[in-house]
């Protein structure tokens, strides 16, 4: 290479040959040793990300939590209605409406054009989890609202009035509607994250719905532990324990089954810290609820821990996916590996790069 005085401030060249993993220029090993290709350093375009992280701010993980809380609370309300536990029924219904309203508000606030929020109802699109989710959210919100209205009908002074009678008739449909749309509301948010190019979110699509529904049940049970008296809280203590167990178990399976590189953002940095704290809070809250839930103070503390744990799970998973989109190694390395793996199997007709 020629040099002249103008080249003097040329930036230092990157070291070659050495294989590195991690950081902006992690290396990788070819699997097929028989092919006479020297080990290639992991290449990127000036370390820039390939896929883009979505422009979502903290409203989105907040919604993930609130949506789950609403869905679980809906089920608490339904359970309370079915087993005639008035405090749970009322608490669950009010919590479901409040959480779904706050969550919907958070979603609208995060839009680039909040005044066009209703454009979500412009079409029904099965290929868009966000479209499907908008309809689920709208339907759940409607039934949650109706449930609170029928609940208020029970407090009317004149129970023989036409209004009171109408509301009594509307009560079972409201309950059934809440029950039908609660599970989709809790589960679709996992599909929402997974149906993206953010490597860690997409890779987690098999287990993430289980993490999220577990987390939803645990959070709602936590809220019910805080709001309901101890003589009614036996069902929600069980719900807290089973929900937390599902969340923790699914998260563990997810981390183990994922490509270790793509699981890395779940262990490291902010996301790693959030998820570790979430595990402790969820496990502690569930144990507390199960063992000491008959004590009012212990029930409240356990309930708060469960809600905090659920919120941190959502923020942690959110953060991990954002990180995985920002570093090109999470995009390039797994793609190269699966390409190599297919080529090693002799599949050479489905690559985007072709020799002719």
């Amino acid at each position, binding site marked *: 290479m020629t040099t002249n005085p103008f080249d003097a401030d040329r930036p230092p060249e990157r070291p070659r040959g050495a294989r590195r993993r991690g950081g902006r220029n992690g290396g990788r090993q070819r699997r097929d040793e028989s092919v006479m290709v020297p080990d290639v350093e992991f290449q990127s375009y000036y370390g820039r990300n390939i896929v883009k992280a979505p422009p979502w701010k903290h409203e989105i993980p907040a919604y993930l939590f609130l949506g789950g809380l609403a869905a679980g609370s809906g089920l608490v309300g339904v359970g309370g209605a079915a087993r005639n536990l008035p405090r749970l029924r009322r608490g669950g219904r009010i919590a479901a409406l409040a959480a779904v309203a706050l969550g919907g508000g958070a979603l609208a606030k995060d839009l680039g054009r909040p005044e066009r929020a209703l454009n979500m109802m412009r079409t029904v699109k099965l290929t868009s989890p966000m479209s499907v989710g908008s309809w689920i959210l709208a339907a759940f919100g409607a039934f949650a609202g109706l449930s609170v209205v029928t609940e208020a009908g029970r407090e009317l002074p004149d129970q023989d009035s036409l209004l009171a009678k109408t509301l009594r008739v509307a009560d079972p449909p409201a309950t059934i509607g809440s029950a039908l749309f609660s599970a989709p509301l809790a589960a679709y948010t996992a599909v929402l994250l997974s*149906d993206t*190019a953010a490597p860690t979110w997409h890779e987690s699509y098999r287990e993430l719905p289980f993490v999220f529904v577990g987390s939803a049940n645990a959070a709602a049970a936590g809220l019910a532990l805080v709001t309901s008296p101890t003589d009614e809280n036996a069902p929600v203590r069980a719900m807290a324990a089973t929900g937390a167990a599902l969340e923790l178990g699914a998260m563990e399976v997810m981390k183990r089954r994922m490509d270790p590189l793509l699981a890395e953002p779940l262990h490291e940095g902010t996301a790693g810290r959030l998820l570790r704290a979430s595990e402790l809070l969820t496990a502690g809250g569930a144990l507390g609820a199960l063992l000491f839930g008959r004590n009012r103070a212990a029930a409240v503390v356990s309930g708060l821990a469960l809600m905090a744990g659920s919120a941190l799970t959502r923020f942690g998973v959110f953060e991990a996916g954002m990180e995985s989109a920002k570093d090109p190694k999470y995009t390039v390395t797994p793609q190269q590996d699966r390409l190599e793996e297919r080529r090693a199997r002799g599949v050479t007709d489905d690559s985007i790069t072709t020799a002719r």
Partner: protein
Amino acid sequence: MGFWNNQLSGPTDPIADAAWEEPQPRKGFFTDTSICIGCKACEVACKEWNAIPEDGLGLLGSSYDNTGSLGASTWRHVAFIEQTSERIETARESGRRLVDLGMPAVRAGGAGAPSGLNGARPGVDSDRTADAVGARGAAGTAGVTGEAGPARGATVDPTGDQAAAVAQANTAAASGTIPDFRWLMASDVCKHCTHAACLDVCPTGALFRTEFGTVVVQDDVCNGCGYCVAACPFGVIEKRQGESTVKNLGVAQKCTLCYDRLGAGQTPACAQACPTTSIKFGDLDEMRAVAHERVETLHANGFTEARLYGADPNDGVGGTGSVFLLLDEPEVYGLPPDPRVTTADLPDMFRKAGVAGLAMLALAAASFLGRRR
């Protein structure tokens, strides 16, 4: 069922799938990076025609690239990569490996490699020896000669300066010399995928498939949810941010393949402005054919590092509407090596979510039914 099978992945005709009553031939780009000179006329023409706002003036310290990447206000982006002989050799080797793999294999029982390539093979093989012996550093020192030089020159039409260039290329290929430095320049653009993830996940229907098979955002419908940004496997589309005076603020923006110009039978601004014909525009079938021809010519001249990107309808996005000829691995240019439309897995995702939803109901029901008060 055939119709539904190809709606999320695999080769298909997106215009027919979008049920256009008067479909046009699918339009596309062929960006031949081997003749890009990095003038950025495409970036400028695009900005000007589409009235894209300024989005930052600064020096990024990445060669001559000061736009960084495709985004809401950068619909054409010229990448600059500086490489020394070692990297060039690696690129040549990896391209040769693609040739050796015979990609893409012909899927439905056809013949093997086309004759043009077969003709070049002996020469290519002799290059390998030559590269191994000679290449590093000073030009023209390795005295190894290949036998296929003249035969290869036959596939191109040597006129004027091109003859000299071909002769030079032949000498380089035959003697195994590799320049000690090269600049890769590539004008990147929206891929207008056959299976466009951005379009699939758009909840408002703001993104749509045009009669030309391209993917376009309706500025007045998009509410800026940002889902398309997360879904694009190439990181093309982005939500526009900036001052409150900026046009289409908070709305997802990307290349429209100059939808307005196409409607009037015009060439997109970037292709029209390109002074070297590096950016070619036309019917996608034709673009693919030109791309195949060009890569064969380059291979025949010993440039085994040449390869196509996006020309295979069997790839993870069903083939792209923008085909590229690259001179190194895609990731070097900031392109994903094996992109897959995320919605290809969507049925499975919904299935898993369905099971999870049932598990949620079951756990809640058990908690309430299984206990006394």
